[in-house]
């Protein structure tokens, strides 16, 4: 029976926990296989180097933005606040309304295309450097390392029995984790409810039920995901990992092990001539496996578990330095470059392939279009709702009158007076007060009477257009179509 594999060609097999049970059943020829297995804890070893430094740079950059932004002040208010209760979304000088959802859609499309673009060029950059799962795991692992020590000491601590020392270290670690997680949850809620008020409420233990729920929920998710779940989130839960095969091609940069240079692997005394011993450059020190946060062996080739963090690259480079071998036994390269032995320039040249150029062109277009849209955005929105009960009525002098409600939304942060005009028929005009005051960043419903001389329009439906213009700013103007009915 031919056996096709749905598994990555060179993937690792997670050790079957029931191998012994299988051996017992083998007598009958039928083996029991568990389809669920207890998870094996991974103890990643600390690593330093060029890519680790980059990851820490991004940890700092993303976290300074995340933790710092809610504390910024703009126009005497929180600079970035997503006020869900009042459905207003403040981002520095801009106030977005639910009607501006198109900008959110554009943002998400741009984010998705960026993901496509970066992945096509250089693999899972997002996963390895910027994803919150990676970033918080990095922070939590750093805390763990400071308290419990590096890989070997952590493994020893976990294997040993419970003692006062172990209890102390574990409590301290979880205490610090929970503190960081809670601060994360607090900051998260600080984006939707003013963070300075929230801090006062937290201090006096008077947070509202939903604020409390979301702080604890987000905090718990951070603690659980970064402290306990870690690589399991990437391997079993994250959908992104699972459509990598569609996003990568043979010219995408991935973390690769130079099999030809490294094999056959084997340990050797330092300074000995490996070629004479018939060995490749891999000294089989297992550092690349020990530093891997998902516990895989990169020497077995591209695997879906690989989040592209390049920890193994840093680890291997250090060993190569010690051995006096050139760096790059494990490095960023492409499958194509590996097979065709392309040099670095040849590999980079292939980054400019149609797929990448197309992604870049679409992404660029969307960003430019969104930028223009935001630049020319008018902080005013108007909805015209025609009165349905009274279609048309005759008023003094035989004039025909229609009634409308104008929902005027002032998206600026100053109160404004708006002038309401109407055109589309001769003698068409707004009867009575044609001005409305709208408070800053709020909306109001304004009933408007529109009249026309009976001689100016025949019975039937006429297209008209309302013009709402800010009295203090001539360029803040919105035109809205409606109909005028004469009977």
């Amino acid at each position: 029976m031919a056996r096709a594999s749905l598994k990555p060609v060179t993937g690792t097999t997670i050790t079957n926990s029931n191998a012994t049970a299988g051996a017992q059943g083998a007598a009958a020829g039928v083996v029991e296989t568990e389809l669920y297995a207890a998870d094996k804890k991974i103890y990643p070893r600390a690593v330093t180097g060029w890519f680790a430094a980059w990851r820490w740079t991004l940890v700092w950059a993303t976290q300074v933005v995340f933790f710092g932004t809610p504390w910024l002040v703009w126009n005497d208010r929180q600079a970035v606040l997503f006020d869900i209760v009042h459905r207003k979304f403040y981002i520095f000088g801009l106030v977005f309304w639910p009607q501006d959802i198109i900008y959110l859609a554009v943002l998400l499309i741009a984010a998705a295309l960026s993901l496509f673009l970066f992945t096509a060029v250089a693999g899972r950059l997002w996963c390895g450097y910027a994803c919150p799962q990676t970033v918080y795991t990095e922070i939590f692992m750093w805390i763990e390392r400071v308290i419990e020590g590096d890989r070997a000491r952590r493994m020893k601590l976990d294997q040993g029995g419970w003692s006062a020392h172990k209890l102390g270290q574990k409590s301290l670690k979880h205490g610090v984790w929970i503190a960081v997680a809670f601060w994360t949850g607090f900051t998260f809620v600080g984006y939707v409810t003013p963070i300075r008020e929230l801090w006062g409420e937290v201090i006096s233990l008077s947070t509202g039920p939903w604020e409390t729920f979301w702080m604890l929920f987000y905090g718990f998710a951070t603690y659980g995901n970064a402290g306990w779940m870690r690589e399991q989130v990437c391997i079993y839960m994250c959908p992104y990992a699972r459509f990598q095969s569609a996003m990568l091609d043979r010219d995408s940069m991935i973390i690769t092990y130079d099999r030809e240079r490294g094999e056959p692997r084997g340990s050797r005394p330092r300074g000995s001539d490996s070629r004479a011993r018939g060995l490749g450059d891999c000294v089989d020190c297992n550092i690349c496996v020990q530093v891997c946060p998902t516990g895989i062996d990169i020497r077995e080739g591209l695997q879906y578990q690989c989040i592209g963090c390049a920890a193994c690259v840093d680890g291997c480079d250090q060993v190569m330095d010690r051995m006096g071998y050139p760096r790059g036994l494990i490095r960023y390269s492409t499958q194509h470059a590996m097979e065709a032995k392309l040099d670095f320039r040849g590999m980079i040249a292939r980054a400019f392939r149609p797929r990448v150029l197309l992604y870049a062109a679409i992404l660029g277009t969307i960003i430019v279009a969104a930028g223009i849209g935001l630049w020319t955005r008018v902080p005013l929105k108007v909805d015209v709702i025609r009165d349905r009960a009274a279609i048309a009525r005759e008023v003094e002098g035989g004039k025909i009158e229609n009634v409308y409600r104008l929902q005027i939304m002032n998206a600026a942060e100053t109160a404004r007076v708006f002038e309401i005009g109407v055109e589309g028929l001769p003698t068409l005009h707004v009867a009575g007060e044609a001005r409305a005051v709208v408070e800053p960043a709020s909306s109001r419903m304004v009933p408007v009477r529109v009249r026309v001389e009976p001689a100016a329009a025949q019975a039937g439906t006429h297209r008209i257009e309302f013009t709402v213009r800010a009295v203090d700013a001539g360029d803040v103007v919105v035109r809205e179509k409606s109909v005028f009915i004469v009977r």
Partner: protein
Amino acid sequence: MSIFTSSFWDVYIAVISLVSIIACGIFLKVQSVRRSTETDTSGHTWDGDLTEYNNPLPRWWAWLFYLTIAFALLYLVLYPGLGSYRGTLGWTQLAQLDEENRAADARFGPIYEKFAAQDATALAKSPEAMAIGQRLFLNHCAQCHASDAGGSRGFPSLADRDWLWGGSPEAIKTTITDGRTGVMPQLGAPNLTDDIWLHGGTQDAIIETITKGRASLMPAHKDLLSPAKIHLLTSYVYSLSQGGAPPGR
């Protein structure tokens, strides 16, 4: 219809729900282990020869499934879900609606009470009260009397100084609370010497009014709106005939 007289369908639904949930649990248990002669595959075969290596999922993944089953069973105990069984919490949609209404009353009640304590004519000069009054008017009155309170044929204008049943705050409040019934000929005779015609002032319309009569109805709102809201609406409608354009414009 037997649906109203027999409990068959209640039992039917309950049995299907419970059997499905329990079957899911059994299925999950059975599917967690594979008996096969091959040790390293999952035992599934597609298209005759396509098999799959066994990469065991973490065990907590299976627990999540069991957790959903426990959740479903607990839910069915607490909430109505099994036929006509009402659940131990006694939850109903209507009770929840009542509760939300009570919560809204508790929240907004004080605002209306504050206005209810004031005189309607004084209230008509408060922009805050009139802004709320306008919103109430647009929700409850504008369907007939139009957004600008100018009315239409058969529905009188409330924005002018012509009143069929009286334009004092007391009269307006009575009109909103108890409603009015106008019948031609009999009740609520209008002034025929002015230029305001509820049912049209053309020759044809007047002939129709005289020949066939007219019946007008302002429905009573005492069961639809709280006295405090009626008070605020009274004041808003009163203000319309005093100043022309609604205040705050």
